[in-house]
Structure formats: structure tokens, C-alpha cells
């Protein structure tokens, strides 16, 4: 059955062709050697014994040709010619190989070759750009991670941890003189002072006053640095400084006990101990303000 017309009549119109795909508006041909991809009398590779296509393999284009002389030898049916990488040269090669072939096939071959080179160029450009890497999710692992996260959240007790940390920082005086709470550490240190021998005379106190002036500045400068380190970077000396501070300030409180108010830290400290400080009003606004 080598007459093309008979083949076309059978396959194309009447009987079943396994390469044919029909849609509402058009028929397509799935044959790998088809030149245009449509199911036509002139583009069917089965119904034309003289046929040519362009196929692309690994980025190189080949011209495939089939002639009626080799119709009896299916193994040698398709002849393959490698086309040059240069676009114009390849077009010339196509012309050269398909000289004296029907105009339709030559034209369509060149069109197909053009399309193929265009998409090859685009592939090369895209690979240079950013590629999106798709990482598949594994359901079991996602579920496990989610569960572990929930349990970790419960174990973390975030609110408590944050509150504890903030209170720690308040105790260690990183906030300076913004908050006027009578820190109970003062009272503790006071009790300590009272419990110790009361032979600690004023002479000692006076000595330490001068030292206090120096120490005070030294300590406060360090404080502002310390406030920015994370927990682990807190040096051990901070606890010593804290004790020194407590001693200083509790002396203040013991001296100005008469007023019944605890003085502010900071600028108040720099003044001489026996001047009474009247910053009463400042304590009230802070207690009145509510968290917004």
C-alpha cells in the first residue's frame, strides 16, 4: 500500500490512525516525524513518501529525510543530516539538502528550524538566570515538626521566661533611674547591715563616701554597656558591682529615712548624702499610667 493517496484516504479520513488526535476545531498528529504537528494531507509522514523534518536532540538540530527509494527498508528509511550551529549556514544546508523538493516541505522545514533555534536560545538564557529550586515536602516530617514545635512552645513558657528576664534586668539595675521601686534588695542589704556589728563607725562611712563618688561613676558607665549584652555575656563582675551599689544606696536610705521616702538614684546619688531630696511627685505618674 504505497500509494500515498490510498494511505491518506484510509488513515486520514476513514479508518483509525493512532497518531491522530481530534479536538473540536482541529486535528493534530502525534507522529514524531511530523513537520507541522497538524493532521493534513501534506503533513502526514505516513501519507507522503517523500518527506523531511527537523528534529532537535540535546541542543543540536538534525534534518531527517525520507525518500520513496528507501520505502522498502524501514531501518534505512530516515536519513539524518546534522545541521550547523550557525543559523544562516544551517538554512543554507537545508536548502542544499532539500533542493528540488516540494516548496511546502522546504518552507515548513525552515520554519520549524527557526522555532527550534528560538526556544533553544531561550533555554540557554533562562539557565543563566535564577532557577527556582523546588524542594518536596514530606508529609510525615512536616507533621512531626509541627507537633514538636507545639510541644516546644508549651515547654518554653514564654510569658514566664520573658517576665523573669525583665525582672532580673530590673534587679540588676539596667534601667537606671526610670523606675522608682524600693527594690527589696535594699531592705535585704539593710538587714544585713543591721545584723552585722554596729561598730562600723562614721569614719568608715566618710571614707567610703569619697570612694563612692568615684565608684559611682565607674559603675554607672558599665551598667549601660551591660544592658545590651545577652545573658551569657554578662560578666561575673556585675554581681560584685551590684553589691557595691546596694551598699551605697542603702546608706542613702538609712540617712534619709526620716523623710520616709527613698531617693531617686542617678543624679540624686551624686549629691551629698545629707541633703534631702524632694522628688515626691515623680513617683505618682509612673504608677498611674496604665499599659496601653
Amino acid at each position, binding site marked *: 500500500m504505497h500509494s500515498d493517496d490510498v494511505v491518506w484516504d484510509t488513515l486520514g479520513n476513514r479508518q483509525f490512525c493512532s497518531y491522530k488526535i481530534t479536538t473540536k476545531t482541529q486535528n493534530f498528529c502525534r507522529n514524531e516525524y511530523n513537520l507541522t504537528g497538524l493532521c493534513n494531507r501534506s503533513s502526514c509522514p505516513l501519507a507522503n513518501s517523500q518527506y523531511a523534518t527537523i528534529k532537535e536532540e540535546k541542543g543540536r538540530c538534525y534534518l531527517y529525510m525520507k525518500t520513496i527509494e528507501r520505502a522498502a527498508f524501514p531501518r534505512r528509511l530516515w536519513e539524518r543530516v546534522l545541521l550547523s550551529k550557525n543559523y544562516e549556514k544551517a538554512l543554507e544546508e537545508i536548502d542544499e539538502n532539500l533542493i528540488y523538493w516540494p516548496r511546502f516541505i522546504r518552507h515548513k522545514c525552515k520554519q520549524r528550524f527557526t522555532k527550534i533555534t528560538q526556544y533553544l536560545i531561550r533555554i540557554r538564557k533562562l539557565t543563566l538566570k535564577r532557577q527556582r529550586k523546588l524542594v518536596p515536602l514530606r508529609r510525615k516530617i512536616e507533621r512531626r515538626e509541627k507537633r514538636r514545635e507545639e510541644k516546644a512552645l508549651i515547654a518554653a513558657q514564654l510569658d514566664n521566661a520573658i517576665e523573669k528576664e525583665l525582672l532580673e534586668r530590673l534587679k540588676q539595675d539596667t534601667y537606671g533611674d526610670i523606675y522608682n521601686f524600693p527594690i527589696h534588695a535594699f531592705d535585704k542589704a539593710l538587714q544585713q547591715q543591721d545584723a552585722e556589728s554596729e561598730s562600723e563607725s562614721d569614719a568608715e562611712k566618710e571614707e567610703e563616701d569619697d570612694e563612692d563618688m568615684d565608684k559611682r561613676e565607674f559603675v554607672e558607665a558599665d551598667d549601660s554597656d551591660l544592658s545590651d549584652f545577652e545573658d*551569657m555575656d554578662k560578666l561575673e563582675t556585675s554581681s560584685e558591682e551590684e553589691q557595691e551599689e546596694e551598699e551605697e544606696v542603702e546608706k542613702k536610705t538609712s540617712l534619709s529615712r526620716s523623710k520616709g521616702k527613698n531617693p531617686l538614684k542617678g543624679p540624686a546619688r551624686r549629691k551629698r548624702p545629707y541633703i534631702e531630696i524632694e522628688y515626691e511627685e515623680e513617683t505618682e505618674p509612673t504608677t498611674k499610667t496604665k499599659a496601653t
Partner: protein
Amino acid sequence: GGAAGSAAEDGAPPAPERVLFPPTFSVSEIKNKQRRHFMFLRWKQQQRKEKLAAKKKRRKEREALGDKAPPKAVPKTIENQREYDETTVDPNDEEVAFDEATDEFAPYFNRQTVPKILITTSDRPRGRTVRFCEQLSTVIPNSHVYYRRGLALKRIIPQCIARDFTDLIVINEDRKIPNGLLLSHLPDGPTAHFRMSSVRLRKEIKRKGKEPTEHVPEIILNNFTTRLGHSIGRMFASLFPHDPQFIGRQVATFHNQRDYIFFRFHRYIFKSEKKVGIQELGPRFTLKLRSLQKGTFDSKFGEYEWIHKRREMDTSRRKFHL
């Protein structure tokens, strides 16, 4: 019938060690589902009663003994049972201190650089991600959000360095929710890639406060114990300016628990010297470290300091890396 008979037979030869029970049936052998359920509930109640009785008895004994009572047993938690990690940082370690004085964050901690952050997303971000980026930029002071128009990160990074940015944050998005965070310290600093989960925007947080103000927040970094955790902690610390403004009363927390880093942003107020109230503002999210790479973002040729390898690292339930 037969069972009782055999029991009688066995009981005849004296065998004082063998204690014989009448054949009981277990709850799971009842075929009828309703009855089985009922019997199971009854069994559960009984167990609970017995447990309660045992507890009471133990408490009475403890009170009776008074001072001589043995100390209370500490319950085992995963944190207690955590496998000791040899890279745990000792606060007094000189080697670590020296390393930190000379690593990429030293200029920040020496106050030579001021952090300036660039926040961007992956291609074509959806509304949720965009809103999240905006909220994140209100939380982190001195940060700017830029729309990513399909630009390659490798090209963005030199431009950022030229404009004095110190950090780059890229929020990766998948299926309309943000799910990844890439944090890159810019002048050739390390790049950390995190998986982000449970992202809650401000309107989804219950009982939230007002907007975060422009004050520089404080930072809390909890539980970063190992060497790796330490460097990640420093990375987070370097996002925020050095001097927190305490009048703002805002605090940003990065809390590490079992390798999950929880981020929260609160406003606090001290009600007394022993009580503090906190109120959550700001977005919240959870991070899990996937990889830490030396140098800025380069997924092909970068030198990875740490990658999470599931098969090797997830073998033990009590082993954590941060």
C-alpha cells in the same frame, strides 16, 4: 466450667509460689463497641481513683516524716534529659571570647557599625507576606522593605553593600504564606537559612496592644547554649541597634527551645518591683535553623558551616543543636 475445673485441679498439689487468679477478661475483648467503651471508661475512672489514693497516701507519709522525708523527685523533662552537647559554651571560655572578638559581628559589638536592614521577599509576594514584611519592618528599627522584582540575590548583595546595609532579610513565600527566612549579614557575614512557621500577623494576635512605636526595643535571647546557638544569637542581636530606649518599654524576644526559636514582641510595664505585665504587640513567628553558611548568600559554591541533615541529626529525641 472448664477453666474453673482446671483451676481447682491446679490448686490441689501444693505449690505456694504459684498464685492463681480467676481468669479475667480484658476490656478490649468485648465485641460490642458501646459496652466496650463504657467498660473502658469505668476502668479509667478506677485507675484514676487508685492513683489519687496512692498520691494521698504518699503525701500523708511525707507529712508524717516531716523533715526526714526524702526530697521530692524531680520530674524528667526533655530539657533535663538533653544529651550533653560538647560544643556548649561556657561563659568563661576564653577561646570563645577571643573568637567572638574577631568574628564578623565584632564591628557591631564594638559599636563601629549601625545596623541597617533590608527586608525583601521572594518573587511575586502575596498579600500576607507583604503585610508581614511591613510589620517586621516596624519591629526592627532602621529597616527598609523593598519589592523584589525578580532580581537575583547575587546582584542585590553588592548594591546593598555599596549602600551601607548591614543585614539582608529575605522572606520566602510558598502557597501564599511566608515559610522561610534568609538572614544574611552583609559585609561578607554568615548567612543563615531558617524555616519559618506559625506566622501570626498583628491582627491575628488576641488581646494585642497598639502599634509598636519607633523606640528601639530591648532584646532577650534565651537558651542559646551551644557554639552554633551562640553565633545565631549574635546574629539576631546584630539586627537591633545597640542602645535600647527604655522609655519605649518594648522588648523583642528570641527564645530557643528544643531547636525552635520563638520570636515575640512585647510591651512591658512594671507594676511593682516583683511584678511585670507584658502585652504582645507585633508579629510572632517560629524559626528553625536549616543551614548556616559562611560568607554571603551563595548556594552553589558557599562554604556551609552547618546544614541540618535529617538522617544523621534527627536520630535522637534528646539531642538538640542550638
